[in-house]
């Protein structure tokens, strides 16, 4: 396995399929839109907290808004919206480990299975 820096025909800027600088202008407009959306959603998150909703409702809304914001960052800033299959495979395995990790304390609390 060698990396021949002198042959640039197949050299690529590895960023989720965007190999042409012309596409970047369109991407930059998307970045700005996402930036404005993230700023707005941050204000929404704080504003909702002042409503002092019931705890369950407050957690649901806060996690929902955070998930939307996180998805915007992951999809557009991290280019996950147009990535290679192997990256998705890595993330699916990660999610398969991560979600039970988070769910475990919630399930055990509700059923009282492990704790009580």
């Amino acid at each position: 396995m060698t990396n021949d820096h002198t042959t640039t025909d197949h050299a690529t800027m590895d960023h989720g399929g965007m190999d042409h600088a012309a596409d970047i202008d369109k991407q930059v407009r998307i970045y700005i839109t996402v930036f404005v959306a993230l700023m707005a959603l941050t204000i929404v998150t704080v504003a909702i907290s002042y409503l002092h909703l019931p705890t369950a409702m407050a957690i649901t809304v806060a996690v929902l808004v955070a998930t939307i914001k996180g998805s915007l960052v992951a999809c557009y800033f991290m280019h996950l919206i147009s990535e290679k299959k192997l990256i998705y495979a890595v993330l699916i395995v990660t999610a398969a480990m991560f979600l039970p990790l988070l769910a475990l304390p919630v399930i055990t609390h509700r059923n009282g299975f492990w704790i009580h």
Partner: protein
Amino acid sequence: MEIPYTVEVRRDTGLTNGKIGIWLFLASEVMLFGALFASYILIRTGAEHWPRGDSILNVPMATFNTLVLIGSSVTMVMAWASLVRQRFDTYRIYMGVTILLGFVFLVVKYFEYSHKFHDGLFPRTNNFLAIYFTLTGLHMLHVAGGMAVNAYLWGPGAKLWKTNPVWFTNRVENSGLFWHFVDLVWIFLFPTLYLL
């Protein structure tokens, strides 16, 4: 020894080695923060009483910091986009602003921490503060680490642009992936710790 596939993509993965490497690293980071988030949920659901974050923590400062970190994420991606557009000087400006915003984030956290310590609030005080200092402290270390890498790519590491611009652009993208992940973690930390 030359690092393979830093510029060309591997035929089997369709990716450069650096790209797959950073994503595997981020996967491990997800599990690290996931374990701490799970601990937080376990401790909170098991507690008889749990304070609302805004009764102890400074929400306006944290909101400001959230906006700062989101701003740094967009300047980071614009730094990379500048390199794709072959505009190195613009890259330097965006990357410089990214580093500066990271510094602003840390300064605000310094004032937050100082205020807590001044009020006699430490990690040992209660479980809420223990989890607060652990999660935000670990996150701050990530911000500092990302700043160090970005500073290298802004300064001495930028020499690579002259000899191998594609490799340098890929490095900036990989550093950006880490920086966006740090932003993403904060997006969940902020409401979890400060607002609920």
